[in-house]
């Protein structure tokens, strides 16, 4: 007997741009563009880039082989020198976070869940294609353990051995050897040799990108700010996957526009807007939740210490003798010595960097984001808080993850923090004036 009310309903395939996953990116991007006034014109390139890659799922092209990286400690200059293209795989999508949660421990960090969730899917967005190799520096615990998981998913994974102690000469030697080993591995992968010209060309690319970033960084010193943090995060997030030469040109164009803004005395925020330094677990598109909340509430993120922005592009390499071995060793040093990631045993350098940023950028307060499950950032909170307390700088600690549920409560806390910062500043000025 047939029951007409029950039948098999075929699964409709919907184009990516109408999927919920795309919706997540769409919402955030629309918010970034429409809910703020006077976006710089040069930002249009970046808005369009994210729309095409994250909302429409368009392909991201690359030259040569594709080497995925899971951490900024993977020396991208080496990858470029071998004619391959590096792309950062770290993912910011709640959709993939939920996918990753199916096989990852519930208390893991959202970033790793999202990255693994993405790698485990059939339709990987951004559409970069399957990496020929994934370089996984052994930095934080979660990354370390995800190495074999990625291998099981069918990717070729290379463990780049990274030291846990920053200060010792032994670590330095270890890391230099590790980088040289990586170069050997790349040679086997690409079948090319590492030449002086190739390496110099790679240095040129990243050097130019870093110089452009430094200029952009310096424009944020101005008070009142001429550009909002949400745009800067978008620019640096684009570096993950965009073509480096084109990215650099667009940032240089942005710098030109910012110079014009500076000359014209343009204000992107009210003069009393609280200036915030953002530090901690990296905001990756579309999870720009916290910076957006700060700027919606009237604050402005003037500087940051996170690996999806400042730390990725700030430090520059100095080379004494432009021969291959000196260049490779200099590169190794640049990736290790100034690194302020909390994965090290001690992190005096991070505290000093934060205090220096607060001072140079005239920040009124600090927002410290830690993803739930990111043990290193969570544990380092105490010593950073003490340092800021002694220096009399207000700090707000937010433990959160990729889920949008806590936006309402977070906005209250952030507003209260900004109000408190404003009051403090007023009192200081009244006391001084």
């Amino acid at each position, binding site marked *: 007997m047939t029951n007409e009310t029950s039948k098999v309903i075929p699964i409709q395939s919907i184009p990516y741009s109408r999927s919920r996953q795309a919706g997540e990116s769409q919402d955030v991007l629309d918010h970034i563009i429409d809910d703020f006034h006077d976006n710089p014109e040069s930002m249009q390139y970046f808005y369009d880039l994210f729309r095409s890659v994250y909302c429409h799922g368009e392909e991201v092209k690359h030259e040569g082989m594709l080497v995925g990286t899971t951490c900024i400690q993977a020396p991208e200059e080496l990858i470029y020198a071998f004619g391959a293209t590096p792309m950062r795989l770290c993912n910011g999508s709640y959709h993939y976070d939920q996918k990753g949660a199916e096989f990852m421990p519930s208390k893991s960090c959202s970033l790793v869940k999202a990255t693994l969730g993405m790698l485990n899917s059939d339709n990987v967005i951004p559409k970069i294609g399957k990496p020929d190799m994934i370089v996984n520096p052994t930095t934080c615990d979660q990354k370390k353990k995800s190495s074999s998981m990625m291998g099981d998913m069918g990717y070729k994974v290379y463990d780049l051995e990274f030291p846990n102690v920053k200060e010792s000469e032994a670590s330095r030697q270890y890391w230099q050897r590790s980088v040289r080993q990586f170069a050997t591995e790349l040679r086997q992968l690409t079948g090319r040799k590492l030449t*002086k010209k190739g390496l110099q060309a790679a240095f040129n690319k990243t050097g130019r990108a870093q110089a452009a970033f430094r200029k952009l960084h310096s424009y944020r010193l101005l008070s009142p700010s001429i550009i909002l943090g949400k745009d800067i995060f978008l620019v640096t997030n684009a570096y993950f996957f965009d073509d480096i030469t084109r990215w650099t040109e667009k940032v240089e164009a942005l710098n030109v526009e910012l110079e014009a803004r500076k000359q014209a005395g343009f204000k992107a925020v009210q003069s009393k807007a609280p200036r915030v330094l953002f530090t901690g677990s990296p905001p990756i598109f579309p999870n720009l939740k916290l910076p957006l909340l700060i700027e919606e509430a009237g604050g402005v993120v003037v500087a940051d210490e996170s690996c999806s922005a400042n730390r990725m592009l700030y430090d520059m390499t100095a080379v004494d003798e432009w021969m291959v071995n000196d260049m490779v060793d200099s590169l190794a040093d640049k990736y290790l010595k*100034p690194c302020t990631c909390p994965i090290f045993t001690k992190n005096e350098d991070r505290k000093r960097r934060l205090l220096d940023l607060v001072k140079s950028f005239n920040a009124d307060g600090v927002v410290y984001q830690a993803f739930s499950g990111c043990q290193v950032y969570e544990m380092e909170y105490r010593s950073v808080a003490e340092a800021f307390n002694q220096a009399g700088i207000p700090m707000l600690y937010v433990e959160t993850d990729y889920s949008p549920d806590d936006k309402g409560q977070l906005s209250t806390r952030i507003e209260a923090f900004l109000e408190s910062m404003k009051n403090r500043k007023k009192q200081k000025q009244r006391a001084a004036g």
Partner: protein
Amino acid sequence: MTNLEDIRTAVNNVQFNRFRFWLQIFFFALLVYGGYLGIELGKHLPTFACGYNKELRGGMCFLMPLQHWMEWPWEKLFSAAALTILYGFTIFFLWFIALNRGWCGFACPVGTIQDWITSLRRWTGIRYSRYSEGQYKGLGIIKWVLLALMFLIPLGIGGGWFTHDLKSPFCMICPGRTVVPLFGLDVSQWSIDFSSRTNMIMTSLGLLVTGLFFIGAFVKKRFFCFYCPMGALHYLFSKAALLRLNKEGAKCTRCGDCYRVCDLQIKEIADDIQNKNIMTDDCIMCLKCVAACPEPGALKATFAGIPIFEATEAGFITRMNKGRTDDK
């Protein structure tokens, strides 16, 4: 005031290596050939303007007269005649404080020769060698030992313990003695003196050190400077000097770029974030570290407190760009 800013920017963005190259040529010409033009800067120079370069030199290295004085019989040494030594030291001191150890980094002919040998090595594409941490710590003491011996052996001669043949013991082993006169086409120092056993030993030692000097300078940058007693003597007075190497610890990211380019492998420039005066006993004040620092204001060279060469972002970027494209 804008003019001052422009000058400052131009100085900070200078192509440092080229600037240093030409400044070194200038001092080399002055000290090694100055005599041709009748230039005589005196016998108290704080650098290896070698006394053995008899005809052409534009001034003399202080260590030669110093060792001569130390040889005086003790009755003379500890008498009123010692005022000469005091006078000599004062002139030496006055010359010294003008450039601090910049005398080593920019003026010393032997230093300049080593830099030329380094350029030769670079041209061949051979890489330089570095000391390991253990070697570095152990060998660093040698310059102080040599300085001590430079005083003690002549004293011993004056006191009647050592033969007179041990006069100017440091000059005998200094590579300056054999190498600098070469530039006047004078090879008279390239021989072993068989007149006495001591002379034979000392001159053989001298040639051995010269050989080591060439090999060492080829594989290491500024090889001899690590062992130089003149440098040690400098360091004793360096706190009083006008030219200083200063650091602002708060601005330092400990990126180690300065350490990487330092010829003398000095780690303290990168790691010390407490002290303002960052000069150690090995530093030759070549200022390569300042040129290689990307953090504005973290490192600077000051003269009498006024910053004359500072680390800047723009300077760093310009210099690294040129280095890359120059293919040096």
